[in-house]
Each structure stands twice: as structure tokens, then as C-alpha cells.
């Protein structure tokens, strides 16, 4: 229980820190969003008065530049707590509305990608460890190293060029066909999956190798442990040893890795979605930079970060479930 509480505390603290950072970025960066926005507004309407300008900025960013900085900060926090991320300059819609329709799609392709990578990588890695030294192992290790060295967007571009344009097998962009109606109906689900295949595919193709190599290393280490030897002597079945002994213990460090890669993955959504013209948070973020739509930009950034924090939080909590040692004692630190 204490463990859960601690992790929750940390997650909340991180979110708060990121909000503060976002606020700082908007408000304090010299030549940062705030000033850029001011310049943009003045450029659009050269005759604008100072008070009009302030009011406009306040409406757009949910930050009122006149007030003392801590009041601004308080208002900003208060606004965020109510889901107020400000107003889009370009679309003239609340940022929250703009982002709400994008967020599920990012979540969809990223979690699918991460999940597939993880599962394929772990299965393959464990299998490679069992066949250590075989031709299969050597070949897959080589392929793994090679795939690790290919950035996902390279595979993505090649896939778009050939599978998308040359052979016209799969769509090269968008999240679902315009002919289907969103909702829980089969054509929509099908279309969504079809549109997600290439982005997710390029992620998984380049990502699973690293996971497999890692899992292979862990499994080989576990295979050399004393308790494995004792388990064999005790006559346990190979299946049980593979699952309960090797699998489970080799998985623990992978989980920590998963934790770290969530951040990297969601960060990568910026590139992935842009290349596949996939309308998610990342693409919105890039679009808003091009349009100098700072409220949307900051909102997207905040949302991506919160998604990562939640992901890490969930992984953290479940780690306690799979490793009995995690919830008991903290790391020993003295001095």
C-alpha cells in the first residue's frame, strides 16, 4: 500500500513539475512563446491597444501577463485543473477540444507498437537464449544488431514508398478512411487498423530486435543461476522452468527498460505521425509550430508528457506485482 502511495506521489509530483516547466517555458523564455505570440498578434493587427493585446493573450494562453508571476502561475494551475489549456490561435477553438480528438490516436498506435515490440522481442529473445549458440541464435542476433541500427522512419519511408505508393497495398496517411463512420462498427475498426499498420509496423520492425537481444542476455544470465540448477534437480518440468523461472526472472529488468522507453516512444510520435500524416498529438505539435500556434503546442507537449507519466506510473505499479522484492525494501542507502 505504502508502495502504491509513494509511486502515486511521485507521478503527481512529476506532472506538477512538468506543468511548472511548461509555464516557465511559455512565460519566461526570452523570445519564447509569450513574446512570439505578442509579436504575432501585433503583426496581425498593428492597431491593437496594449490592454486589448493583454486580454487577447490572456484568453489564448490562460495566462494574464499583467498579474504578478505567482498569480499568473496560480491561475494557470487552476485553469489546468479544470481542463482549460487555453485557446488555439489558429483554429479559434479551445486547445482541449483540439487535442481531445487527437490524443486517442496517438495512444492507440504507440501502445500497440510498444506492446507488439515487447511481446515479440521477449518471446524471440527467450527462444534465442534457449538455443544459444545455434545457427538460429547467431542469425537472429545479427539481424537484431542490424535492425537496431535502422531508425524507424527510414523503414517507414521505404514502406510508404513501396507498400504505399508503388504497390498500393496500404494507405500512406490518415487514421481512417473518410468513407466509414467513426464508432463501434466493423468497417471503422478495420479501417483504423489498416491505417495504423504501416506506422506500427515500422516501429515494431526496427524495435523488436533490441528487445530480443536484451531478453536474450537476461535469459542467458538466468539460465546460469544456481536456482535454475536446483529446479532441474528437483525434477520440475521444462515448461515450468521456462515460464516460472527463466521467463519471469528475465522479465524483471525488461520491465524497467519498458519504463524508460515509454518516454522515448511517445517522444518519437512526433516523427512517426508526421511521416505517416497520422493525425495524433505529435503531428498537431509540429503543425502548431509551423502555424506559431503556441497554446496548442504547449498543450500537446503537456498532454504527451502526462501520457508518459501515466504509462510509467502503471508500469511502476505492476512492477511491484511481478517482483516481490520491489515493494518490500527500498534500496539500501547509508552514509
Amino acid at each position, binding site marked *: 500500500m505504502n508502495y502504491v502511495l509513494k509511486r502515486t506521489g511521485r507521478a503527481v509530483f512529476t506532472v506538477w513539475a512538468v506543468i511548472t516547466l511548461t509555464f516557465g517555458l511559455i512565460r519566461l523564455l526570452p523570445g519564447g512563446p509569450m513574446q512570439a505570440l505578442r509579436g504575432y498578434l501585433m503583426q496581425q493587427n498593428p492597431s491593437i491597444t496594449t490592454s486589448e493585446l493583454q486580454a487577447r493573450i490572456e484568453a489564448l494562453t490562460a495566462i494574464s501577463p499583467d498579474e504578478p508571476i505567482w498569480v499568473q502561475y496560480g491561475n494557470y494551475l487552476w485553469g489546468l485543473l479544470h481542463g482549460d489549456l487555453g485557446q488555439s490561435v489558429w483554429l479559434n477553438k479551445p486547445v482541449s477540444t483540439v487535442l481531445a480528438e487527437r490524443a486517442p490516436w496517438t495512444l492507440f498506435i504507440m501502445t500497440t507498437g510498444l506492446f507488439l515490440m515487447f511481446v515479440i522481442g521477449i518471446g524471440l529473445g527467450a527462444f534465442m537464449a534457449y538455443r544459444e549458440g545455434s545457427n538460429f541464435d547467431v542469425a537472429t542476433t545479427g539481424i537484431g544488431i542490424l535492425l537496431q541500427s535502422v531508425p524507424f522512419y527510414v523503414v517507414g519511408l521505404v514502406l510508404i514508398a513501396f507498400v504505399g505508393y508503388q504497390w498500393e497495398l496500404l494507405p500512406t496517411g490518415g487514421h481512417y478512411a473518410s468513407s466509414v463512420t467513426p464508432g463501434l462498427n466493423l468497417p471503422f475498426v478495420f479501417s483504423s487498423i489498416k491505417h495504423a499498420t504501416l506506422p506500427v509496423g515500422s516501429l515494431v520492425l526496427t524495435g523488436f530486435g533490441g528487445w530480443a537481444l536484451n531478453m536474450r542476455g537476461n535469459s542467458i544470465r538466468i539460465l546460469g543461476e544456481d*536456482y535454475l540448477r536446483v529446479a532441474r534437480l528437483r525434477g520440475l518440468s521444462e515448461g515450468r522452468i521456462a515460464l516460472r523461472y527463466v521467463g519471469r526472472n528475465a522479465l524483471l529488468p525488461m520491465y524497467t527498460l519498458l519504463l524508460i522507453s515509454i518516454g522515448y516512444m511517445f517522444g518519437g510520435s512526433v516523427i512517426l505521425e508526421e511521416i505517416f500524416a497520422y493525425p495524433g498529438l505529435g503531428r498537431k505539435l509540429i503543425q502548431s509550430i509551423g502555424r506559431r500556434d503556441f497554446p496548442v503546442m504547449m498543450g500537446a507537449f503537456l498532454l504527451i508528457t502526462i501520457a508518459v507519466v501515466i504509462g510509467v506510473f502503471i508500469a511502476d505499479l505492476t512492477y511491484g506485482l511481478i517482483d516481490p522484492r520491489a515493494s518490500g525494501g527500498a534500496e539500501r542507502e547509508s552514509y
Partner: protein
Amino acid sequence: MATNDSIDTMTQAEPIGGHADDIMTVRDLVVSYETGEGKANVVNGVDIDIHRGEILGIVGESGSGKSMFASALLDAVEKPGQVSGDITYQPEGGEAVDVLNIPTAQLKSLRWEEISMVFQGALSSFNPTMTIKGHFDETLRAHDVDQDEGIERARELLSDLYLDPDRVLDSYPHELSGGMSQRALIALSIVLEPSVLVMDEPTGALDLLMQRSILSLIDDVQEKYNLSIVFITHDLPLVAGLADRLAVLYAFEIVELGPSDEIITEPGHPYTRSLLKAVPNLDAPLDTMQPIEGSAPHPSNIPAGCTYADRCSLATEECLEEHPPFHDVGTDNVGEASTDADHFAACYHWERARAEMPLEIDADAHEGTVDRDRRPTADDETVVTLDDVEVHFEKSQNILDLFEEPDIVRAVDGVSLEIPENDVVALVGESGCGKTTLGKTGIAAQRPTGGTVSYRSQDIWATKDDGIGDIAYEEIRKSLQIIHQDPGGALNPNRTVMASLAAPLKRWQPDLESEDRQARVLGMLERCGLEPAADYANRYPHQLSGGEQQRVALIRALLMNPDMILADEAVSALDVSLRVEMMNLMLELQEQFNTSYLFISHNLSNARYLAEKSDGRLGIMYLGEIVEIGPAGEVLSDPKHPYTKVLKWATASVEPDQEVSEPPIRSIDIPDPVNPPTGCRFHTRCPEAREVCKHESPTLGGDVEGGRVHSASCFRDDEDHEYWDSEPLTDEDEMASIDETV
């Protein structure tokens, strides 16, 4: 080949096979590995019978092949090792089983159901992500044993081993202390009621007291469950009292085999005789303890003749050329090959060995004895004074734990001690008693949370903080040095010996020329027997043996020219036969460099050797307190504190007639130092405890400071104390309830 010779002789004399009821017979067992330079035999032609219902002790130093032998008994040698020879298992009233040549399915049920095994390091034998109960469950299921019945048996076994079944079964391995997990592993290994139990150093990583307690439990369990036990260890005294027969393993083969008491009183092989003398123990006169020179052969390069010849003082041409067969050396029928012979040694010169290598020698005859012409006198200044020192640790805290009450570990609680120049103080206690913390506090490597530590009557920490006093802090720092337990860990793996040793000189004599610095280091290396010194200086730590690493660490400390050296378990990690040698070196160098030693050990024999030989003191620690201290000889011959008596009991001796007795304590697990018992801290385990001990804490009587008076903190020391009118504590239930996790 050497092995063939021994076989031939064996069949001629039929020395071993004649026993009526053997549960296992091993013939010409060879375990080999392919190495770059050809085949290396790590078990080289071992023949032995295991009698039904006996405890057979197999003694060998590290690298003698004993673990491989253990694995081979279950046909469980790890790949790429190859096993050849015959191992036959003879179940009671059943058909003999050829262990090395049975189908996998049969082997699977043979293991654990008939022949079972306990490994060293119990913690690594358990799956860290499964409860203890999970381990029992899956074992029972894998062997189609009724679950309820099996768990019931497991519970009974656990309580036979002084464990609380409910608590232990629901625990994860990491939640148990070393002693507890080792006992749980023993229970797991016999839950299927095997007939043979092979134990490979089952107590290796544990404290002496726990070792002995477990040994006495093994003795009970063996009787109750009618087991035949093969007990493999490097510790001859430990197993001597337990085992019915002993086999001595040297260089991958058995060199001597016989009844325990005969092996101890009248060993026939020179190696056994030397080994007996090399082992520090409590009873033998100090001067009989001698190191064995040289080292055992490498498995890829086993000599054709006697493997011990190059270290043996009796070796002749014959020994070098031909592998010696077993000779019947039984004392009842010396020299005659008879069918009931039971004591054999693979040595041509066993008669000469007995005549020329006495187990007890006159003190004068022994060369290399350190004659102490200096011992601390009243004139010697006190180097370090500890005054009512307390060291309390807070258990780890993190930023979000601010609101929780921190757990406080009372590592050291109110200890006063004075160490004069040229003195030796040995502190002994179980792990977790705070002896290392106390030692580090003594050399100012650890800041005390209460009390003062002074160097030549000047408060060290005040000097460091405020710079007051005549002696600079740097000077103090330089004067108090350390040698660690783990020789491998004490040296930076990335630096050569020269670089590691030059560091202190660079720091303290920066104006020294680089050449002079090197010459000094080389001189010290040579002085400590690391020759050729230039060669050793260029090596990395991993290229040194444990004993050599420890010498380098000792040199490093001495190069600082310190007044006191903390030797923290400095010999515990070394092989038994090297310990005396290392301690002798320490004492010789002490003479030369005028240092004091604060020697810390969990091993009473080692502490006794060092303290008694240097005419120093021996202190006994328990849960952060010194409970008894005095001149080493007096403390051991007339222990006043019950805990000292317990430690003495726990220290195996090589007396032939000793028997494994019940532990003289009421609970074998040490209480949690976070929450030490009230009153006398030992009252929860003390066999003599009475009501008053629960509430009142005794103090260390006598003149402790600087004096060499023997004193103990026990009410029994005071004849008029109310203790004598108090009710004895004999609550049997307390046993389980004190079983704290660590």
C-alpha cells in the same frame, strides 16, 4: 595412467568394497573438462562407498574438486563437464541403480526422491520471485506426491529445524535471513524423504554459531528420517564431530579415508596431518599450527606420481614416479590387509608420516615463531580510546518518507575501549552484532552518533570539524588504517599492484622520486614473500590468488606507517591452510612497524590465534555491545558470559571424542538490531536467563579502560546479585517467536 594404478591395487586389496550395507558405491569416478591445453580432470578417479545411515564427511580445500564430486553423485555435472566411471545406488530391499546410465525419466525420479542435494548459498538456490511454499508445492507436484500430505511433512520438517512453518512458507526467499533460508533449503531437499542427502558446504556462508546449530539439527534430522548424508566441506574441524567417517580430498582424488576419530588422532597421509596442524582451533597449542607451503596442482597438469609429493617433506623418488595406492593404515590392525579394514591412506610413507610428523610438536622445535620481545606495557601510550561510543543508523529514507518514523539500527550501543600501542585486540561476534561498525568507528572511518573517539587523547572528530588539538587531522587519518575482509574487493580491479601501492606513498610522501617509490613498493612486496617482486608489481588484482591479494592490502596499509590497523575479517576469506600463514605475517610485520591491530572476526579460532599469540585481548560482541573482554587465554579458558560459552561451543575443535550436542541457546536466530530485546540483550537466547535479565541490563564490570582485566557484563558475575533469586526463563515457546527476519 595414474588412475588405473590405483584401481588395480584397489581390487587386489579389496579395501573398500567389503562393507555389507552400502547405499552407494562409487568406482573410478572421473569428471573432466576440455580446456585449451587438453583435458582437465577435476575429479580424478575417486572410489568410495557410502554406508547406509552414516554421515560421511568429505573434506577438501577450495579447488580440490569436492563440489564436482557432489554433483556427480546425482549425475548433475554441468555441461560441458564429462563424467565417467560407475556410481551405483542400492535402495533398501530394491534393485541396484546405475546412476550414470539410467533413462532420463528414471533419473528424474531418482533425484530428490532417493538422492537429494543441498547447495551452499541457500539464497541463490531459491527462485527469488516465488514463495518458499511455491517451491515445496512445485516439487511435490513434479514428483506426483499428495499435496496435503507433502505440505504437512514440510511443516513438520521446518519445525524440526526450529523454524515457524507458517511464517517461512509464506515468505519470499529474500525475506529470510541466511540461516533461515539455509534451513528451509534443507527442509526442501528432504521433503520427498530421500535416502541419501548430499550437502555441498551447506553452512559455508553462515556464522559459526548458526553453522553449529544447523549441524546439530542435521544430526537430529539424520536420525529421525534415517538418512545417509554426504557432507562436503573445506572445514575439517566443523565436520569432524558430526561425521562417522571422513574422506580427505586433495588434488581431485581421495588421499585418506577412515573413521572420523581415527583420521583426527592418527591420520596416515602427510597432507591430512599438515591440514590438521594448519587449521586454527581453540584447543591445540599455538605453536603446533603451521601453514602448508606450496599450492595444489592444476587440473590440467596433474602429476603422474603422488599429487602431494611436491609439498611433502617425506617425498621420495617413488612418490614422484608412481601413484601411491591405498594402504590400510587402521590402528587396530596395522599393516595387515584385512576384510574389516576401514582406514586407508594413499601414501607409501604413512608409517614414516606418523613417526616423523607429530601432530603436537614442542614449541622450541618450531621455526618462524614470533617471539614477542615487546608487549604493551604501562609506558605505552594509548593510541585509540573509544568512550561510550554509539553508532545508530537510520534505515533508508526517501523524499516522500518524511512523515514516517525512521527505523533505527543500533549497530553499536555504548562501547568503551582503549587500545595502547603495540596491542592486539580481537573482537568476535556473529554477523550483525556491530563489530565491523565498531572497528570502523575506532579508526575514524565511521562517525559515531554518540560518545567520543580519541587518538592519543585527542578527540578525532572535534579535530576534523574544528581543527583543534596538537595533532593534525591528516596525521590521525594516516595513523589509522584498514585491511578488508574480501581480498578481491580491496584492490581496484583496474589498477596494477604497483599503482595501488604507490597511491598511499604519492599522497603522503609527494616529494619522493618515482623510482624510490617503486623501489619501496618492490621492497615491501619482496618482504611479504611476493617474489619476483617486479613481476607481481605489474599484475592486476585478478592475476593474484586470494592470499596474495590480502598481502598486497596489508602492504598498502603498512606503507602508511600507521599506529593502528583495523583488520576486518582479514583472514576469513582465505583457505584454511593459508590463514595461519597470513596471521603470522601480520604479527611479524607488527613487530617491525610498531602498530596495533584491531582484529575483527566471527571466528573464535582465528581471533584466538592472533590474540593469544601476541598476548593481546579478546572481546566478545553481541548486538552492539561488548559483553566480555580480557586477555585471550583467560577469556577462553574461563568464559564468564554465557554468550562466550555459546560461541565456544559453536567453535568446532578437532577433539576426537567430541559429539554434536544440542545448542546451549534457547533460540538460534539473532534478534533484529532495529528492536533489540530489553534488559540484557542476550536474555532471549541465554540458557541461564532469569526474570531479572528481561528488565535490567548488566554492565561490563571491572576496570575496562586500558586495563587488562577480564570482565563480563552478566549478573552471574556478581555473587550477590538479585539474579540468583529470580525465576529462570524456560519458556519453550519463545523459541519460535524470536525467529525474527533480518
